[in-house]
């Protein structure tokens, strides 16, 4: 299984939560502790080691918040 890393440009996130519904390993969460510069709760990943670099989160994100890399 591939290993991946995702990067969230948090200030672009509008807190729509669509990414959280498509992650196959369910590691994307909405960080209720913080708000970004737009006033939204940004999406983020805490368990990066589980990321499989499928790219689904970036595929559904309407705001190009997420960059996905595959680490081999």
């Amino acid at each position, binding site marked *: 299984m591939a290993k*991946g890393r995702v990067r969230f440009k948090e200030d*672009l996130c*509008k*807190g*729509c*939560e*669509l990414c*959280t*519904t*498509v992650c196959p390993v369910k590691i994307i969460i909405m960080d209720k502790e913080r708000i970004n510069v737009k006033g*939204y709760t940004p999406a983020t990943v805490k368990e990066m080691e589980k990321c499989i*670099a*499928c*790219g*689904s989160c*970036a*595929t*559904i*994100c*309407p*705001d*190009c918040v*997420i*960059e*996905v*890399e*595959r*680490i*081999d």
Partner: protein
Amino acid sequence: MAVVFQKTKGLTDKPTHYCPGCGHGIIHRLVAESLEELGVLDKAIGVAPVGCAVLAYEYFNCDMQEAAHGRAPAVATGIKRVHPDKVVFTYQGDGDLAAIGTAEIVHAAARGEKITTIFVNNAIYGMTGGQMAPTTLIGQETTTTPYGRNAERNGYPIRVSEMLATLSGAAYIERVAINDIRNIRNAKKAIKKAFEIQLAGKGFTLVEILSTCPTNWGMSPVEAMNWLKDNMIPYYPLGVFKSPEEVK
């Protein structure tokens, strides 16, 4: 290490004004990626509508013209007749294309204008605050159908793809959706194919994309994607309604 996903050069750096979870964000990206991957960004000319996507000229990284409401196919016709070698596309919503713009889209398709129309169908008027669209479903509540759309009072929703497919000038018409990853990937394939058919000079191409309007549907973006799947896809079936005999 390999990049799996990076923002396309087909979009500018300007953050969009769209609501959280709005389908426009996804669809803009699919169009921009297609243009970049086909290597035609430097010869693309897009036409923005009136609707939530009125500011699309700030987001697509190519030459753009802003059209009057519904007139984008006519504007695109003017552009393509002047620059037949360029990739010309319109990006329109359901009011722009299926209400005020019905004459323009029908005749651009009938003439076989070699343009590509990206038709975003979210069954409601977004920009003006949630009125009935020609594609609003029976029973759907909007600000101008507060009791739910009723066939007797408000008529029936229009299936644009099926209607335009009857025209000989239309070379390729497909309906897709963006409610889940598989559909988003298929939507991108359809959009790219539409541009390829334009480049092959085969005629008019249109991709109807079922999308969401969480704000005016009164639901969360996640709920809206489910509503699309449960309510829109049954009435607006996905699939190819017109395809050219042979695609280069």
